[in-house]
C-alpha cells in the first residue's frame, strides 16, 4: 500500500462521512475505515500499512474532527501498542476502538512509593481467586486517573521468585470497587497527578495482558513506547522555553547585565545545538536509520529546561508567584504560567518518565556498551530483597 492508495482510501472515506456531522460518529467511522493508525492490522483501526503513511492520513484529514492527543496520551502512546502486542483478539476488539475515539480514557498504574527507578521491585499484590484476581497496593504519579475508565497495571503475583519474574500485567477497571483516586499535590501548588489506592480490587482473568509471570516483558513494551514519545517534537530556532526567556529579555532591557547576557548566549548555543540534534534524529528516523541518539534527547532537554527556567526567574528578579492554589490541572500549562511556575515544574523533567540517572545508565550501557555494575538483586527472591 503506497501513498496514492492511502489518499484514495481517505477520499473514499470522506465521500461517505461528513466531517461536519456528529464528531464521535465520524471518529468511529474513521477507525472502522482503518484510518486511525494505518500500521495497525485491518479491523483494529489500521490497514497493515507502513507507519510513515500515517502522516499522509493526518495531512488529508487535518480539517476534520480530531482526537484529543493530550487527554488520550497514555492510551494512545502506551496502552494501545501494548494491547496490540500482547492482547488476545477479544481484548484488542474490546479496547482499541473506544481507546482511539476517546470514549474511554486510560491511565497508567506502574510507579509505587517504593518502586520508582527500580520499577521491577513493585509490591502491589495480585492473588488469584478462581477466575478472578484480587489486587491490593498503592500506585503513584498517575495522571488522568480521575477520569480514566481503564488502566494498565503491573502487579506482583509471585513474591517467591526474583523480582523480574514474579510480575503480571493487567488491564484494571477504574470503576471497580476498591479503586480510590486521590489528587497528589506538587511543589507548584497544583495536582497534575494522583495516588491510586487499590484495596481488594477484583479483576477477572480475561483482563490479564500476557502470561502470568511475564509482566516485566509486557511492561518493557509499554516503557519503550513512552521513551520514544518524550522530547521528540520539532521546534524552531530560539523556540520552546528559550522563546519565553527571550521575550522577557527583549522587553526588559533595564534588567540586563553582562553576567546574564553571557549566560544567556551560552544557553542559546546549547539550545540550538540540542535542537539541531533533535532535527537530525528526526531525519534519521525518517530515513529508517533510528540510531541511538534518541535515548539522550530527554536528558538534554531536561537539563536545558531547568537551566533556562532558573535563568528566567533570576533575570526577572521576580520574588512573586502566580498561584499556589491546590487544584487539579488536566494539562501542563507551561507557557501560560509565570517564570516561578516554569522553574518548579521543569524540576520534574529529570524525574518523570525515567530519571536522568536511569537514562544515563541506559545510555552508558545500551549505547556506549559500558559494562553493568555488579548486581546484587538478580537471583534473590523478591520477598528477600533489602528495602
Amino acid at each position, binding site marked *: 500500500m503506497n501513498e496514492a492508495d492511502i489518499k484514495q482510501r481517505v477520499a473514499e472515506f470522506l465521500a461517505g462521512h461528513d466531517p461536519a456531522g456528529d464528531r464521535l460518529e465520524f471518529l468511529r467511522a474513521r477507525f472502522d475505515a482503518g484510518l486511525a493508525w494505518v500500521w495497525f492490522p485491518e479491523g483494529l483501526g489500521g490497514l497493515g500499512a507502513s507507519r510513515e503513511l500515517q502522516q499522509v492520513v493526518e495531512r488529508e484529514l487535518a480539517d476534520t474532527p480530531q482526537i484529543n492527543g493530550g487527554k488520550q496520551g497514555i492510551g494512545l502512546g502506551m496502552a494501545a501498542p501494548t494491547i496490540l502486542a500482547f492482547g488476545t483478539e477479544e481484548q484488542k476488539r474490546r479496547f482499541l476502538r473506544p481507546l482511539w475515539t476517546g470514549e474511554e480514557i486510560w491511565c497508567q498504574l506502574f510507579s509505587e512509593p517504593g518502586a*520508582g*527507578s*527500580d520499577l521491577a521491585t513493585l509490591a502491589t499484590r495480585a492473588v488469584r481467586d478462581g477466575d478472578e484476581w484480587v489486587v491490593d497496593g498503592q500506585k503513584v504519579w498517575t495522571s488522568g486517573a480521575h477520569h480514566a475508565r481503564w488502566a494498565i497495571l503491573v502487579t506482583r503475583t509471585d513474591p517467591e521468585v526474583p523480582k523480574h519474574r514474579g510480575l503480571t500485567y493487567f488491564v484494571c477497571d477504574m470503576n471497580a470497587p476498591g479503586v480510590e483516586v486521590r489528587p497528589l499535590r506538587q*511543589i507548584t501548588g497544583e495536582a497534575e497527578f494522583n495516588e491510586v489506592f487499590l484495596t481488594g480490587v477484583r479483576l477477572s482473568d480475561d483482563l490479564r495482558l500476557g502470561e502470568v509471570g511475564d509482566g516485566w516483558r509486557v511492561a518493557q513494551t509499554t516503557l519503550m513506547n513512552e521513551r520514544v514519545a518524550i522530547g521528540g517534537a520539532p521546534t524552531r530556532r530560539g523556540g520552546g522555553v528559550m522563546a519565553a526567556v527571550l521575550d522577557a529579555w527583549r522587553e526588559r532591557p533595564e534588567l540586563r547585565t553582562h553576567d546574564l547576557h553571557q549566560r544567556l548566549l551560552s544557553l542559546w548555543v546549547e539550545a540550538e545545538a540540542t535542537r539541531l540534534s533533535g532535527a537530525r534524529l528526526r531525519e534519521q528516523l525518517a530515513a529508517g536509520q533510528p540510531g541511538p541518539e534518541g535515548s539522550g534527547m530527554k536528558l538534554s532537554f531536561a537539563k536545558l529546561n531547568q537551566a533556562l527556567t532558573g535563568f528566567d526567574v*533570576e533575570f526577572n528578579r521576580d*520574588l512573586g508567584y502566580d498561584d499556589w492554589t491546590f487544584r487539579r490541572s488536566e494539562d501542563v500549562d507551561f507557557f501560560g504560567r509565570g517564570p*516561578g511556575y516554569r522553574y518548579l515544574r521543569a524540576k520534574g523533567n529529570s524525574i518523570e518518565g525515567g530519571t536522568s540517572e536511569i537514562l544515563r545508565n541506559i545510555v552508558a550501557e545500551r549505547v556506549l556498551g559500558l559494562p553493568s555494575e555488579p548486581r*546484587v538483586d538478580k537471583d534473590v527472591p523478591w520477598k528477600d530483597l533489602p528495602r
Partner: protein
Amino acid sequence: MTLLYTEIEEELRASVRALLADRCPPAAVIERVESEPADLDLWKTLAGEIGVAGLLIPEELGGAGAGPGEAGVVLEELGRAVAPVPFLTSAVLATRALLPTRDALLGELAEGRRTAALAVSFAASPYRPQRGSAVRAEGGRLSGTVTGVAGADAADVLLVPVDGELYAVEAAAAVVTAGPSLDLTRPVATVTFDRAEARHAGACDLAAVLRLGAALLASEQLGVAEWCLETTLGYVKERHQFARPVGSFQAIKHRLADLWLDVVRARAAARNAVADPSAVSVAVAQAWNAGVAVRVAEEALQLHGGIGMTWEHPVHLYLKRAKSSEIALGTPGDHRAALASLVGVPGPEGGEQ
C-alpha cells in the same frame, strides 16, 4: 579574627536549634505557610527567651551587644529550619538601619515587644539600593510605593529610607499588600503610603545596611544548603532501589562529595563575611553562597526523586527559599560585578569589544 565558631556561638546555636526542633519542624511550617506564614509566637520566644532580637544592639540601648558572628549562627539555624520568623528583616535589616540613630525604638525591638521591617525591596542590593522604591517625603508625611518588601506582614512599624533619611511609620498607617511569593516562608509584599504620618529617625546609609544584610544572608544560605545536604544524605542512605541504598551508587556519591566541597567553602565564606563584613568579603560570600544554596537544594530535590516533587515533603520550601535568596540583596552576578572594581579585575572597557 577567626573563621571558627566561638563557644558562645555554639551555645547560642544549641539553644536556637533545640527550640526550632520543638516548635518549628518542617511539617508544621508546611501546614502554616498558606494561611499565616509568619510564626509570631515562635518569634516571641526566640526574641524574649533566647534574646536573638537584640543581638546587634549595644547593651546601653537595651540589646545584647553581640555581633554579626552570633547573628550569623542564628541565621544558619533559621535557614536550616526555613523558620518563618522576622529575624533577618527586623533584627538585622531594620535594626541595622536604625542603629546609627540610637532611636528609642531599638530597645523595644531588642526585647521583641515590637517588630520592624525595612521598607525596601528585598530585590534591592548594596549596589542598587533604590530598586523597587518610589517614596517621597512631604511635611512629615510619606507617599509612594515599595515593592517586594520582606517581613512587612509581621511588622508593627516600617522603617522607610527616603533620600538618605530614615522615617518610621506605623504599619497601620500603610497599606501592606501580600501577593503570592515564590518563597512561601518569607513572603514579600507591596507597601503603599498615602500621606502616611512618619517620624524622622535620622540619617540612613542604605547601601551599608543592605551590605550587612547580604553578609548575614550568606549564613542563612549556608543553613539552607546544610539542611538540604544532610537531609539528602539521610534519604539516600535509607532509600533502596535495585536492592542497594541509593547512596551506594557511585554517581550519586560523587555528586554529593562535590556538593559537600561547595558547602565547606560556603561555611568559610559565611564566617569570613561575619568576621569582616567588608565590601569584598560580603560580595564573595554572596557570590558563592547564593549559588551553593540553589545548587544543593536543586540536587536535593532531584536525589529525592518523585517524593521531592510533592508538596508534602519539605524540600520544596528550601528550594523556594534558596531561589528567592539568590535574588535578594543582590544576585551572585551583581556581587561578582562589584568585585571587578573592588579587587582590581577590570572589564574589557577600553580594550577590544
